[in-house]
């Protein structure tokens, strides 16, 4: 019996749905140049065109093809989302676990930093930083990551504090295991459910934040973002055509977030064999 994440996720309906949806969106992002048909930033035809055979979703206020913007927007959204989630989760795992295991001054300092960041609204920092730094896409990712690990670190710390007192960790210590081995083989695996939850949470939050920041005008120069598309749509709310500009980006963003949530939900049993349902042919005699 080997635990396969893939099988675990594909076993649940919501998991299958989430994976399917996210795969679709990811494929969209990956094959954007093939699917787009137009340069998303170039004016392709007249502005405010309704959907037609030439422009599947119509065009926006400057005549850019909305379908092309949508598929390129998926790139930005997922790139920012996954990068931030990976960096923030790694940071929260390392800093949270280290706080719990090292304790003392290191723990106190880390936790005060976490407190400080938690009370300051992320959006305000981002707006201020963006105003001064005019961030590129990668800068944006780094900034979002640095502002996203704190909550996770606190959760990880409290979990790790309880895990390190668990008997199987003590037993491994009695085999002469060093701190690094304990973290790698016992603490991180036991943290994995909350890390997965944290990762999914970060991913969702980052996708949402990226859209939100773009909505208020903070986006990497030259990139296409769903948030920006919606912002532009609202600018033209006095025209009938605005709805064609708003709906595609709004629906795409919602579906992405729904897909991520469903996957997160279905992954939890895989991380904890005790939550697994027995499946025919797999039971151990």
């Amino acid at each position, binding site marked *: 019996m080997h635990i396969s994440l893939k099988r675990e996720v594909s076993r649940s309906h919501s998991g299958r749905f989430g994976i399917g949806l996210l795969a679709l969106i990811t494929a969209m992002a990956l094959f954007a140049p093939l699917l787009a048909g137009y340069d998303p930033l170039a004016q392709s035809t007249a502005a405010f065109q309704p959907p037609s055979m030439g422009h599947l979703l119509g065009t926006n206020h400057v005549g850019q093809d909305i379908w092309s913007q949508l598929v390129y927007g998926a790139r930005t959204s997922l790139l920012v989302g996954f990068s931030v989630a990976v960096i923030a989760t790694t940071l929260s795992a390392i800093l949270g676990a280290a706080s719990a295991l090292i304790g003392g001054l290191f723990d106190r300092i880390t936790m005060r930093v976490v407190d400080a960041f938690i009370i300051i609204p992320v959006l305000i920092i981002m707006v201020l930083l963006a105003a001064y730094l005019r961030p590129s896409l990668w800068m944006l990712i780094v900034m979002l990551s640095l502002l996203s690990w704190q909550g996770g670190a606190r959760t990880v710390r409290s979990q790790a504090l309880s895990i390190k007192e668990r008997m199987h960790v003590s037993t491994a210590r009695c085999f002469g295991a060093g701190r690094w081995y304990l973290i790698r083989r016992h603490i991180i695996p036991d943290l994995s459910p909350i890390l997965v939850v944290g990762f999914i949470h970060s991913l969702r939050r980052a996708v949402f934040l990226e859209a939100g920041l773009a909505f208020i005008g903070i986006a990497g120069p030259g990139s296409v973002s769903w948030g920006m598309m919606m912002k532009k749509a609202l600018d033209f709310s006095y025209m009938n055509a605005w709805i064609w500009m708003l709906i595609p980006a709004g629906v795409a963003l919602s579906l992405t977030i729904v897909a991520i949530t469903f996957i997160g939900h279905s992954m939890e049993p895989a991380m904890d064999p005790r939550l697994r349902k027995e499946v025919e042919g797999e039971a*151990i005699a």
Partner: protein
Amino acid sequence: MLKLVDLRVSYGSDQILNGIDLDIERGESVSIIGESGAGKTTLGLSLMRLVEGDIRGQVYLDGEELLSLSDTAMRDIRGRRMSMAFQNANNALNPVHDVLGQVMEPLLAHGLGSKAEAREQAEHFLKRCGLSPEKFRSYPHELSGGEQQRVLIAMALVNRPEMVILDEPVSSLDAASRVEIIELLQEMRRSTTMLIITHDISAAAHLSDRVGTLYAGRIMELGTATRVLSNPRHPYSRALLRSYPNMTTVKDLQGIKGRMIRPIPGCPFHPRCTQAIDICGRETPAMTNVDGRQLACHRGGIISLLETRGLSKSFKTVKAVDSVGIHIEGGETLALVGQSGSGKTTLARLIIGLVDADGGDVYIEGDKLEKRNRDFYRQVQMVAQNPGEALSHRMTVRELVMEPLNIQDIGSKEERRLKVARVLEEVELPASAGFLDTYPHHLSGGELQRVAIARALALDPKLLIADEPTAFLDPSIQAKILKLLMGLQEQRGLSMLFITHDIAMARKVSDRIAVMLDGKIVEEGPADRVIAAPQHPYTQSLIGTASHLHLWSDSDRLHHLHPH
């Protein structure tokens, strides 16, 4: 009186006795105990010069060397100054003569008096040996084993020799005859010097001033009966005592691993010894004086494996462990008994290093433990109370049992795989692929605890700390796990610190018991002593409240409560 110097006996290339040195004072009684095949009977026969084989060395009887005497001179000594009561097993009596005649024979052979006088003497000794007069004219086959034994002893005594060698005087007898013969010999002890050769340890305890243990033709330990039998220092002596059923020992019987092989270089016992080191296989240990006795062991006898001195730990104002000193010897089980909250588990965690001590030291094989490094964890392992918690539920059995080897980085991948299979076999679990890939939550409580034990064994530790290892198991599984631990002790010579609240269980598995109350050891001693004569009121109450099964009839029960 009798002095043996480097006595060696061989049959062809078979070396039966390998340099026996023994001094027996006049009036003293010495027992030689050992397994069959150790050379006990050969020892007796060679003193009488009755062995076919080649005898070397010297045997002095009152300063007179016997081995260099002529056959005639020896004949004069044999049966007169020194006699031997043979083992009854192989038809020591002549079937065609009546027993009186046979007892008369030594007198007549040495020409000591007339036939009438000889008869009188023979009748006197037969009577003294407890044979009823109407059986004097019986033939050996008409007598019971006990009666035959009495005749053999009478034959040995009839010439009033200075020295009597008794070969297995009580081994083939039923309990009642055995006691009578022991009483007879105890009476004889006052007037005769005796060398008793037996595997009956209780007889040796009753009949001798000193006891020696003989293994593969060598004396392993020699000292006063009290010292050797109540506190054996040689691993062989202890193993012999452990495998001897008696009414005193409360621990279950344990055997000795392997079987006697000879000849081998080095200490003859080293293949079966649980604390053998390199030198034991190379050099024969010399007899040295240790702890008031003579001992042939390179390691100075049973080693002291772990000792704590003044170990203390407080949690806020509670003294969980208050200046505790315990010691555990190699291959021994110390049971730590006490109610919950008495500090037992904290003491275990202090020793293994899961909790830092406020004060006190731990000594491993006599050396102060400065730092708990990987080497320490190769020597000391722990089996926790709840295997369900101690085993990570994310790992398969294979990963779990291999984990200690991975952590310690022992062996190649293939060696680790073999080691896993081996320790699983030791704990009586299958090493099949299907089982190895099982996750803990598919296993029963008993299987889980076996996996936990296998993990601890993978590092070949010398001390196993077992913290209530059966607390989560039902009685039948519990018994099996306890048997398993006892078997491991026999095979590997594991020392154990066995923690339990159940003194009834402690009694069955431990050599010594330490009773803990409020962080202190209030009583400590051999398990049989602590159970039979508890000194501290708390120990008494523990024993009083332990499980008993009084399922006798009412009259028995009344009698038990109010004897007489």
